[in-house]
């Protein structure tokens, strides 16, 4: 267990370091002179521009810039915003709870709807309910979140007035964005749960359980579902990462103050340190989520746990 964990941890750290380089390269490619994010090109004198260059450090050789950037990032110094001198990391941390809440809420929505419909679909395989559920699932993965979000606003905010259309305070503001993001995730989960349920249902142990006279309900929900959930779990892990990224769009639709909003604003304003910071921050979170999913895998599935134990013993 410890050996596999260390290996995973080391490779995660390598990947994060790689992401650090990649982020630098992407941001370096951004066109336009960062100086003009601060200065007005119409009024700036050449001396002012040169002075600002020196102040920002963009006049130094690239490798020096990279060294400073990488060293700073790894020590938790993400630099300052070009627009208002605000330190980047505290800004991200201040806005992260809103994004985290949305990610968790939409993951839960996706898991609950996806697993429920997936089981329903598998139990009623090839009957009309199954067909309907599969069409719903397909709709889920085919709808752009910014459209489903707008439709939800139209129905539940503009017409019915049940939930607020914007903002990030209070649980009411979470409902619509979580639903519109969660629908996408549930589309993927429905398929996966349905397929793995169908596979599990054909296993001998299900036949045994049925022949023992256990109620179909118990067979399905206690025994089949538990086994079918294992592949779904990896999927949910991957999805959490995707949903986290999906908040970029959805936070814009619902005017939520999260890190997705920060990055789309920063991109428009060419505020490089903020862009760098948010991308690197989300890469770390992404890697962390994958690590956690891998670990939870062995906790939930005793077969993987035993396999690991055996590997270690030999």
């Amino acid at each position, binding site marked *: 267990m410890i050996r596999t964990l260390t290996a995973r941890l080391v490779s995660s750290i390598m990947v994060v370091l*790689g*992401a650090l380089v990649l*982020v630098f390269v992407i941001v370096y490619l951004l066109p336009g002179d960062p100086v003009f994010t601060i200065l007005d090109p119409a009024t700036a004198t050449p001396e002012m521009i040169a002075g600002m260059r020196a102040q920002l450090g963009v006049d130094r050789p690239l490798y020096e810039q990279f060294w400073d950037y990488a060293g700073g990032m790894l020590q938790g110094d993400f630099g300052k915003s070009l627009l208002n001198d605000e330190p980047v990391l505290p800004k991200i941390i201040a806005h992260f709870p809103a994004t985290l809440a949305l990610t968790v809420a939409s993951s839960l929505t996706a898991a609950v709807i996806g697993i429920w419909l997936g089981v329903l679909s598998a139990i009623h395989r*090839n009957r009309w309910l199954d067909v309907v559920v*599969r069409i719903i699932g397909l709709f889920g993965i085919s709808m752009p979140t910014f459209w489903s979000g*707008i439709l939800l606003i*139209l129905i539940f905010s503009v017409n019915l007035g049940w939930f607020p259309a914007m903002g990030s305070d209070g649980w009411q503001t979470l409902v619509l964005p979580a639903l519109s993001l969660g629908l996408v995730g549930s589309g993927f989960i429905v398929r996966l749960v349905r397929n793995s349920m169908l596979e599990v249902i054909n296993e001998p142990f299900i036949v045994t359980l049925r022949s023992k006279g256990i109620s179909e309900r118990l067979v399905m929900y206690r025994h089949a579902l538990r086994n079918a959930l294992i592949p779904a779990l990896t999927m949910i892990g991957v999805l959490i990462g995707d949903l986290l*990224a999906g908040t970029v769009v959805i936070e814009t639709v619902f005017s939520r103050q999260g890190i997705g909003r920060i990055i789309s604003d920063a991109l428009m304003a060419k505020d490089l340190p903020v862009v760098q910071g948010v991308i690197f921050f989300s890469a770390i979170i992404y890697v962390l989520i994958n690590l956690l999913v891998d670990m939870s895998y062995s906790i939930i599935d005793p077969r993987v746990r035993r396999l690991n134990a055996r590997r270690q013993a030999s």
Partner: protein
Amino acid sequence: MSAKESVLAKAVWQETKPASPAVRNSRKRSVSDFLVYAAGAVLLFIVACALVPGWIAPYTPTEMLTDRIMQPPGGSHLFGTDYFGRDIFSVVVYGSRDSLLIGIASVAAGLLAGGAIGALAGYAGGIIDMVLMRLLEILMTIPGILLALAIAAALGPSLANIVIAVSLSAVPGYARVLRGQIMSIKGRPFIMAAHSIGTPGLSIFLRHVLPNSWAPLLVMGTIGLGTSILMGSGLSFLGLGVIKEVPDWGTLLSQGRGYLTVAWWMATFPGMAITLLVLSVNLIGDKLRDRLDPKHTRG
């Protein structure tokens, strides 16, 4: 199949499996077939819109009917009109070209780049494989939409740059699939046989390995088309799209968003167009997967 044979086949079928699933199966298959045909029809219509918009759109997309501003759908304006008095249906018809183009070009570029990387990694193996796979792993830590967003912003708003941004985030997926496929083909006896009679490596690769490995990539590409269209329109929605007289669907939707309370149709119909397009592509992609991938469990 003659009537007698079909009766026989059914009898054999009933012996091995309970009767009801067989019957249900045939009914289900007809429903899914119907859906695939419907998807094909929708897709054909959208392609026609992209190719010959003038034949389908009742108005030119830039025509401003100043006496008919923000008309609700109905009458001579199927999708209503916008704040300039433009016919939204016509704008949507003309906008299909960019939306479709972004999707198709992104998948093509992603397949080419990802396919090349995957082929190289899988066929060369060893250190090349290791380095390429680690690089892709790094690329995968940055979520697709964030990567596309940053790249689209980095390169500036143009159709080609959106295509680059969208395709880059799909490259790792394509590369991994082709690599895996090639690695499994590489060790097969017929490849070893080709080696043993002295066929040059490149020729083995082109004539024996590649033709046996590309099918899953095709399926992935079809399914990836939906994702690419969604991501491309997402970038446009966030304002990274191309500013043009005739906007693509994502841009159109984001313009309509500001008028949600007064003119619901402005944002609703472009979004419906995106959904229909992606839905059709996904339905056809699913069917293709069923056909080409024997390992995929059939529902």
